[in-house]
């Protein structure tokens, strides 16, 4: 007899991710992923000035603000075939890298850690043993007896005051929790420390972007950061060095704490390197351009299919026809009028809500496909596509991560283990280490270029009469993002954003191929249907971000149970 579980946090925010699974014999047999909010935000852009589109798109989502701003200016620049100055690329790249580092740190420590770390168990830890354990893995100065004792004392005070409720979203004491008290204490300590690094990388975005979370410095054609090394009010040497200091400090945390934590947790939950794979077709776009026209990049892009790393098709420029031609979206199982699969330039957004029916229409999310195939996007896609292309920096960090985790687990790990729930966490950490290193590189490129006397930041866009099509892609923290724009006589006629979480969280398509979330859940164990921690582990590993988003408090807390097991 199978059990149907719905995980649906629908009450606090209108529209959200709802996950349904059918469990039989303690294993997920079938899964459905549903976006519960209409997100036809693109309609707001019709008829507007393409130069201003990014100001609106960065309001799509409160977590991914800069991401939608970058993709938007790139799309319009692509439509105009407008190259931008080197400085503009470097400044954008620093914002992109800092934002992504920030996002990856937040994802691991704030969103996911409690899926693996039992806060209450940390109370039983011996701080001295925890410090000894940590010193074998990392040189991080925060790993000392005094710090661990302080965290443990605070935690104990919290529990005694009955305040632990703030972690009620964690499933402590769950049979699937398995770390030793010392590792749990270590992780709680890092969870608390992560906050400062979250803040530091955010400051980089604020300095370069003018403000955060909504940056002010972008423009179609470049950036608006006036550069004058002798002027206090512009981007000058003092500001540049401030940026460098913040980036260096974040890099230290990423390499000495985040890297080690993911390797250790990966090793101690090794069976989660076997669950959660699902769709093994991967798509990533290249990012961090190093030349003016967008033909060479520091982050790799491409596609690979069936998990086969020996065959990879690169995506290698901002107007790559392979990418441009192959992206479509299907609405067969989504609440829109019709049953088509179309290219973004040809899409229309006509909502038509019917009830939730798993075998018919059940989501507001469209199902993006690449050459008709389901693709998984995200850091894992980028890392695998990089490995398949022999990308040096990817290899360096992936090998280091697999070696370290393998050493802790007492086994040999190969890239094949990355097709999994924990593989996605590992890949995100690997990408974060790459970004930390590349942020340093692009800082130097910017400083050197300015040092040579180049202060160009902007090329004026000119909108010809008639119709232009453009697409802009960006490898965002959650994966491949693309904006598609049709411009008619200088105003926007059609705009579509194909966002990472629609690639991953989308429903089945016209051929009933399940989306990546849906496929990844099949085969997951579920020990207790009332507390489906394992389902959350796999869903969280994708870093879901689909609400795009409102913020309304519900002070009276009329929440109903988010988990229903029938």
């Amino acid at each position: 007899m199978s059990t149907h579980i719905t995980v649906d946090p629908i009450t606090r925010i209108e529209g959200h991710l709802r996950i349904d699974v059918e469990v039989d014999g303690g294993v997920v047999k079938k899964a459905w992923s549903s976006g519960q909010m209409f997100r036809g935000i693109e309609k707001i852009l019709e008829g507007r000035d393409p130069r201003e589109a990014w100001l609106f798109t960065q309001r799509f989502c409160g977590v991914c603000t800069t991401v939608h701003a970058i993709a938007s200016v790139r799309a319009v620049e692509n439509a105009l075939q407008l190259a931008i100055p080197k400085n503009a690329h470097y400044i954008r790249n620093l914002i992109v890298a800092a934002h992504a580092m920030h996002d990856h740190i937040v994802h691991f420590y704030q969103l996911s850690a409690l899926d693996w770390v039992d806060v209450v168990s940390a109370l039983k830890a011996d701080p001295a043993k925890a410090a000894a354990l940590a010193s074998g893995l990392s040189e991080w100065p925060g790993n000392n007896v005094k710090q661990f004792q302080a965290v443990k004392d605070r935690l104990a005070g919290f529990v005694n005051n009955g305040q632990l409720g703030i972690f009620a979203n964690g499933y402590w004491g769950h049979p699937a929790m398995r770390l030793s008290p010392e590792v749990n204490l270590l992780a709680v300590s890092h969870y608390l420390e992560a906050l400062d690094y979250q803040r530091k990388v955010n400051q980089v975005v604020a300095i370069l972007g003018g403000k955060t979370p909504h940056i002010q410095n972008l423009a179609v054609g470049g950036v608006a950061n006036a550069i004058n090394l002798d002027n206090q009010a512009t981007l000058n040497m003092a500001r540049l060095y401030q940026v460098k200091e913040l980036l260096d400090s974040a890099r230290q945390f990423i390499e000495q704490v985040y890297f080690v934590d993911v390797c250790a947790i990966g090793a101690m939950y090794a069976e989660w390197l076997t669950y959660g794979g699902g769709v093994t077709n991967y798509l990533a776009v290249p990012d961090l351009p190093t030349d003016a026209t967008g033909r060479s990049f520091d982050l790799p892009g491409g596609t690979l299919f069936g998990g086969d790393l020996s065959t990879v098709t690169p995506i290698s420029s901002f107007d790559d026809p392979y990418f441009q031609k192959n992206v479509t979206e299907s609405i067969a199982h989504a609440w829109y009028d019709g049953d088509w699969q179309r290219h973004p330039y040809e899409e229309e957004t006509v909502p038509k809500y019917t009830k939730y029916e798993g075998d018919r229409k059940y989501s507001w999310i469209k199902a993006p496909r690449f050459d008709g195939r389901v693709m998984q996007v995200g850091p894992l896609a980028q890392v695998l596509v990089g490995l398949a292309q022999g990308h040096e920096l990817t290899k360096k960090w992936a090998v280091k991560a697999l070696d370290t985790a393998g050493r802790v687990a007492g086994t040999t790990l190969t890239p094949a283990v990355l097709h999994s729930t924990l593989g996605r966490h590992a890949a995100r950490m690997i990408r974060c280490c790459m970004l930390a290193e590349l942020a340093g590189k692009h800082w130097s490129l910017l400083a050197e270029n300015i040092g040579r006397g180049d202060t160009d930041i902007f090329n004026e866009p000119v909108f010809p009469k008639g119709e232009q099509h453009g697409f802009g892609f960006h490898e965002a923290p959650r994966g491949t993002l693309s904006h598609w724009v049709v411009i008619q006589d200088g105003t926007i006629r059609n705009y579509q954003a194909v966002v990472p979480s629609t690639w991953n969280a989308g429903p089945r398509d016209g051929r009933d191929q399940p989306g990546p979330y849906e496929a990844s859940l099949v085969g997951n164990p579920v020990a207790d249907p009332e507390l489906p921690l394992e389902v959350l582990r796999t869903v969280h590993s994708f870093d879901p971000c689909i609400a795009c988003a409102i913020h309304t408090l519900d002070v009276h807390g009329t929440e109903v149970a988010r988990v229903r097991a029938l």
Partner: protein
Amino acid sequence: MARTFVLGLGNVLMGDDAFGPVVVHAFDDRYSVGPEVEIVDLGTPGLDMTPWMADAERVIVVDTVRAGRRPGTPCRYTKDDVMRQPPGPRVGPHDPGMRETLGTLELLGRAPREVVIVGIEPAHTELGRPLSPPVAAGVHGAVAAVVAALQAGGLEVWRRSVPLEPDRRWQPLVAR
């Protein structure tokens, strides 16, 4: 460095959810404050609210609050009110997470000493619609509540002789 933050929360593209940002901008246009106060249109930061609250003396949050009252009804809450509610499980990083944020900061010993929520009951939070009339009518009162909250904390607030008129291109959307 600022020790007091006025944070406008909400999505400007989503009807009454724009209330928080609209109020902090309206405040900014009409009043100036000293360097110890920072006014931020924070959008929908989800998990990213933590850095804005850490180590602060006082945080004034302007937000929509669902409490089953008539749309446009103003309300005011404090840190204790928020902390009394249990948090829910997180599926995505968007979940507002005010309680988790404050809880984490309490655990760190870095929570703001005082939190005031200046709220309003929304009528609708639908895409691309302007503020509903009752919520739009509440903007002025909320600005006054922010002024009062700052003054109650012993902070100076000066009325600008000429209101600012900054370039705010998304505003037609909410004012329409």
